[in-house]
């Protein structure tokens, strides 16, 4: 069982799925010979050839539109968008066609594709390379939105995404692309979409998070322990449709909840989580559900980006606020 980082785990998942199923294609900018700007598709071009791993002209709208056509024609395209900041061009085809064709044709046509993109700040990247706009996607009926937080999850979730009968937006937390290596089983395994994971059990307060924020939550949980707060951590894994049951079950136990995400607060997914908890578990709440998030501003450039992203200090402050409510 090799120790892999997320980049390698993504690559392994793609390779396994491409070997298993001839209809799986990889497409995007620089995914071929160059192996992707983050090297997530490295080696696939050599193994599967240019008919299954191909560079496209530089147009995200074109990538998305042709991927829909390929999917309707029985392929399972895995399309890469180089950074989340360039994904907005895909929204029209994603919303109008990928997400709706099944419904439009009463189940006759479907669009089993995966749209992959690295997201998030923290790597000192230029403008437009650091955003977390998952909330734009986690409201589009007909698609699924998935975010892994570890190498093992990346493999299992991406494999499920490739096999899913519906379009999946698969967002990769690039801050932790290479941050940790962990044992990733090289046998076949799938992690189901739509199910959250309890990363750590605890009885006082539930942190709900995903992607790179899971690591922050883990760090915080240790510090909170020192303050005698026993934190439970839920990694949503699938942001949409959300595993409400897992969230509610946990909050019913702990009575306190905190959402941590990198996206801006207003209109972010933390709102949906807080609203759901409020709706389904109000009487169990011992304190308001707080949100520690990115700021409601454009992600700053490298010199000030650290101000933007939630860190342990900010999360701890909110935990104390909740505990002393």
């Amino acid at each position, binding site marked *: 069982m090799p120790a892999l980082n997320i980049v390698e785990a993504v690559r392994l998942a793609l390779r396994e799925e491409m070997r298993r199923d001839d209809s799986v294609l990889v497409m995007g900018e620089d995914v071929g010979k160059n192996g992707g700007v983050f090297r997530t598709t490295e080696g696939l071009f050599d193994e599967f050839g240019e008919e299954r791993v191909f560079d496209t002209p530089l*147009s995200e709208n*074109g990538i998305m539109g042709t991927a829909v056509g390929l999917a309707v024609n029985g392929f399972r395209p895995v399309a890469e968008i180089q950074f989340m900041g360039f994904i907005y061009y895909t929204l029209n085809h994603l919303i109008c066609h990928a997400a709706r*064709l099944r419904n439009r044709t009463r*189940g*006759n*046509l479907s669009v089993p594709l995966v749209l992959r993109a690295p997201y998030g700040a923290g790597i000192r990247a230029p403008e437009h390379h650091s955003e977390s706009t998952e909330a734009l996607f986690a409201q589009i009926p007909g698609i699924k939105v998935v975010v892994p937080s570890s190498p093992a999850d990346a493999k299992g979730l991406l494999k499920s995404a490739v096999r899913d009968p*519906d379009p999946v937006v698969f967002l990769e937390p690039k801050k932790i692309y290479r941050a940790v290596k962990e044992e990733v089983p090289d046998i076949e395994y799938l992690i189901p979409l739509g199910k959250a994971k309890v990363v750590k059990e605890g009885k006082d307060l539930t942190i709900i998070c995903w992607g790179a924020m899971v690591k922050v939550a883990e760090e915080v949980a240790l510090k909170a322990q020192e303050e005698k707060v026993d934190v439970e951590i839920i990694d949503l894994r699938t942001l949409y*449709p959300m595993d409400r*049951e897992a969230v509610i079950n946990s909050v019913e136990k702990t009575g306190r909840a905190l959402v941590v995400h990198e996206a801006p607060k207003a209109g972010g997914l933390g709102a949906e989580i807080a609203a759901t908890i409020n709706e389904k578990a109000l009487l169990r709440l011992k304190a308001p559900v707080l949100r520690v998030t990115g700021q409601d501003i454009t992600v700053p450039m490298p010199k000030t980006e650290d101000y933007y992203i939630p860190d342990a200090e900010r999360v701890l402050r909110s935990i104390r606020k909740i505990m002393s409510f």
Partner: protein
Amino acid sequence: MIIGKYDPLKGERFQVLDETGAVVNEELEPQLTEEKLVGFYRQMLISRTADTKAFAMQREGRMGTYPPLKGHEAVQVGSAMAMEAEDWLFPHYRDLGALLIRGVPIHFVYLYWIGNEAGSRFPDGARVFPFTVPVGSQIPIGVGHALGAKLRKEKQAALISFGDGATSEGDFHDGMNFAGVFNAPAVFLCQNNKWAISVPRERQTAAKTIAQKAVAYGFPGMQVDGNDVLAVFSAVKEALDKARAGGGPTLIEADTYRMSDHTTADDASRYRPEEEVKAWEKKDPIVRFRNYLRAKGIWKEELEKNLQEEADKIVEEAVHQAENFPLPELEDIFRYTYKEMPPHLEEELAELKAAVEKRKAD
């Protein structure tokens, strides 16, 4: 060889029949059986009949917004008739005439504009993509589909149809460019009817022709008289054959005219000079082809009567089918969002059902 022969940059346009229906291009007049020729005429008549009916139904409150095809009969029928069984059609939303030929009965089109999703649940095996309302968005999808056929080494081409307005969208640019780069077996058919709602062709692009836009993508483009069903048929057929044989994409600009309003919600007299409409009435594709058939001794009053009666019957039947089609059920609006219904939709469905039942009970 038609493609490559008519250079849009030189103002050349392919025509077989002139406006009176006389053959002006004997060399390229397709040699078709009488049956086939009558078939063209029949399809054009059915298209116009179905169109007139839909317009009337809308006015009677029996249909929602509907985009009339009047004037497009030759381009829709000529292009669809040029396709082989294995080809795929990515239609323009105005393409009722083409759908019918590709095995989608008229009542589907009616259902669609009546506002029932079942109208896009085409019969099994119909190789037709549903209408796409976002103008031009079928273009890159069609190209992706065609690319898939090429990857699978299937002998199959995609005919992608759209309006002049659609050429301004990024989707046109992307579809054309990807098709060029991947040498996709795609034929782009622009039904240039001179208007995009109230915006004239000249406001859409400063290029003299749409056909010349193919230069930007490295494959041939040509203009064809879109009211000449024989010219459309021949050009599209050659382009599809070429595509299937690995010869790459072609852009065909069909020079035609929207003889009616943009949709039933539009009033073209607000923005369109009457003389222009009058001038184009003289170029009516059906009248022109009738003249051709008459000159060939094929058309007779009797034939017209029989075909028109048949068309009326087909259309009446379509109206009947559409109007008696079961309404979607409440469940149907949830059922097809995903392959498997996720828990939150189950919950919403149950709640909505309860509310609706309560409402009914009151």
